[in-house]
């Protein structure tokens, strides 16, 4: 169960709701995408001001003292609004700086993050690593005072507005080994760091980042040598948890909008909602959505008691169940809207695209099912 009390959680969710309904309409979102690549500084300022950036951080570090499950309400509403700001990316990356590493530069950076002035993101995925955060090929070769990093990270989310990046690298062990992975904090404009940014089809910002023998010192290393696997798994698990909540928010919205549309739209002189085949399709959209919502609720209620490896399994289950649910609901929402659902003009297609993106990020359902089998077979 969550750390914050119910009242605080409700207050937070209400404030997010007001923001999305008041300042993040579909038209606002379009404008934000056009003018700010979907990452408006004003919005980010609001996020900080409303305390959303502080939720899962200890009070002694200026946070609200909540935990990651306390952010799920925010994510769900962000799903409804298709918010493209880097909330998930920054929160899950920043959690790695706190509390164990809260000192010196790291503390300064975290303070800046909570106040909305600075951003950090986590670069984990590599070509062919699918959802496996331990499939690290990027090399960290020891040299005198520190390490030299060489390799490539892909699908790094929201580095556009970030000053720092956390990057996983391997100093020892074989590909996918738990031992031998390190986590480094470095500035995105450090020499040898080459960022190729691009917009994604869901309106979010992505980047591939190449590290051409980048020098890092040992003070930039977040754990003891080769011992970063636990932190990396944490970031992965927490990201998956938050993504699932966003997906539920989107799917609930699609069910609601599709039901509403079929009541008004007529074909052959009859409202679409009168056709039994479409009724059953919507019943199945409801079943898929509610299934994921229930699994998420149960997962959240068990999250804090679970150890890190257990959280990884819970997260994989969520993502594995999310895949088919998101695909079905997204596709059927488009199908039941017909041609208009295929257009850029209507929000439906954008929800669908965001769901598709969530499905493929951090490992798709197929990959997570493989991971789950390995766990139960082990």
């Amino acid at each position: 169960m969550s750390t914050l009390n119910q009242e605080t959680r409700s207050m937070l969710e209400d404030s997010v709701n007001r923001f999305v309904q008041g300042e993040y309409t579909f038209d606002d979102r379009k404008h934000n995408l056009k003018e700010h690549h979907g990452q408006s500084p004003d919005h980010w300022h609001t996020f900080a001001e409303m305390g959303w950036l502080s939720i899962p951080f200890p009070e002694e570090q200026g946070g609200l003292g909540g935990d990651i499950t306390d952010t799920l309400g925010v994510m769900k509403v962000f799903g409804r609004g298709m918010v493209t700001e880097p909330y998930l990316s920054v929160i899950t990356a920043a959690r790695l700086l706190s509390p164990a590493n809260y000192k010196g530069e790291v503390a300064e950076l975290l303070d800046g993050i909570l106040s909305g002035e600075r951003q950090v993101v986590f670069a984990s995925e590599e070509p062919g690593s699918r959802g496996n955060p331990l499939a690290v090929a990027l090399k960290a070769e020891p040299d005198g005072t520190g390490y030299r990093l060489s390799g490539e990270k892909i699908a790094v989310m929201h580095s556009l507005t970030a000053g720092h990046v956390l990057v996983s690298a391997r100093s020892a062990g074989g590909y996918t080994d738990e031992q031998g992975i390190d986590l480094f904090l470095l500035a995105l404009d450090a020499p040898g760091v080459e960022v190729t940014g691009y917009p994604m089809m869901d309106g979010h910002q992505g980047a591939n980042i190449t590290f051409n023998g980048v020098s890092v010192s040992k003070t930039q290393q977040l754990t003891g040598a080769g011992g970063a696997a636990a932190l990396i798994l944490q970031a992965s698990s927490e990201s998956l948890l938050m993504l699932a909540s966003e997906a539920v928010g989107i799917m609930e919205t699609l069910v609601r909008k599709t039901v509403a549309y079929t009541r008004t739209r007529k074909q052959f002189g009859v409202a679409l909602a009168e056709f039994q085949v479409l009724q059953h399709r919507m019943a199945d959209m409801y079943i898929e959505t509610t299934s994921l919502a229930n699994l998420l609720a149960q997962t959240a209620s068990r999250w804090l008691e679970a150890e890190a490896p257990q959280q990884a399994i819970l997260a994989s289950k969520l993502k594995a169940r999310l895949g088919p649910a998101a695909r079905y609901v997204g596709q059927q929402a488009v199908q039941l809207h017909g041609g208009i659902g295929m257009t850029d003009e209507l929000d439906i297609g954008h929800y669908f695209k965001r769901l598709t993106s969530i499905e493929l990020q951090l490992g798709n359902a197929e990959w997570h099912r493989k991971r789950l089998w390995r766990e139960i077979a082990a």
Partner: protein
Amino acid sequence: MSTQESAELSRFRQQVRDFIEQNADEEILEAGRKTTSFFPPFDQVMKWHRILHGQGWSAIRWPEEYGGTGWDVPRQLIFEEECRRAGVPLLLPQSIAMVGPAIIHYGTEAQKKKHLPGILAGEDFWAQGYSEPNAGSDLASLKCRADRDGDHYVINGSKTWTTYAHHANRMFLLVRTGGGAGKPQQGISFFLIEDLSDPGIDIRPIIGLDGVPEQCDVFFTDVRVPLDCCLGEENDGWSVAKYLLEHERGGGTSFATTFRHELDLIRRLAGRTGDGFGGMLADDPVFQDRYIRLALEVDTLEATEEVFASMEKGSPQSGPMSSMIKVTSMEAIQRITELAIDVAGSPSLALQLAALTVGSGVEPIGDEDALTLMPKYLNNRAASIFGGSNEIQRNIIAKSLLR
């Protein structure tokens, strides 16, 4: 997926485990292994019912004042998990989970006194008379009727898909007592019939796809029953039926626990079954992927059962979620039985009625774990038909979405 269990609950679990181990004899365990539908072999499950009653454990969800255990939900689940683990048959739902709670809720003191002790003790078995030959999932169109004649009703008509009526001594049923006006649900009463040996009652077992009788046709010809056999108000039997239905879905056995047991069995079998290329099926990633898909469905079902259990019944959400549980659980078990026959392959095609009979002493042909898989596959085709077909459940969900 188990989280830490409190010491107190662990002690309780151990207590249940010990009791089952000491009291479930080989015959009962054999019945557990040879259960191929939602309804275990009759004689053995009733024997087990009476043994549990001796311990005061036959009605784990009834209030204590009526002879129930008074256990909280975690204890109920632990009890069922241990039953599944040990492989004892699950008690038949008709008496304990269906008519019993309805009598507790709607019964007069006299009705409670007359009926509850026999249900609790496993002395009586109640058959359920809802469906009729021309009213499948459409209960409201039933035609079996009861006419008043002095201080009796006279019943004429028939019921079908009445599970285990050929084993039952009592029966609850829906009959039409009111006139033809108004909605078809109106004018229906909920009757408790005490004695199925009445000569006007003719019970004919129906052989199913699996080759055994489980359902029955029941015919009533001028059957006289006293007026006080009516549970709840006359003509208001629909309310009783609806209460019972929702009670059954929410408060009944956890499907997830039962289904997980089936998946375990399949995985064991796959570990012993060749894949035709020299390896074992359990090592085939395609099998593994299907297995995990289904395990995930079961986990998700468990989550939904949890959410539903904590939900206020009769709320706008509880109706569609109850239908969703019916749809997702029945589709899950159907898909699980599909995986089962796919793993078992052609050996599951042998018809082995004798080996399936508890106490026959007939050895199964081939792997014993495979013996039950085809009967389960065939029997479970009914899972999406009976108790309100999956089509009806989706209609209900859509209706609530469009409201």
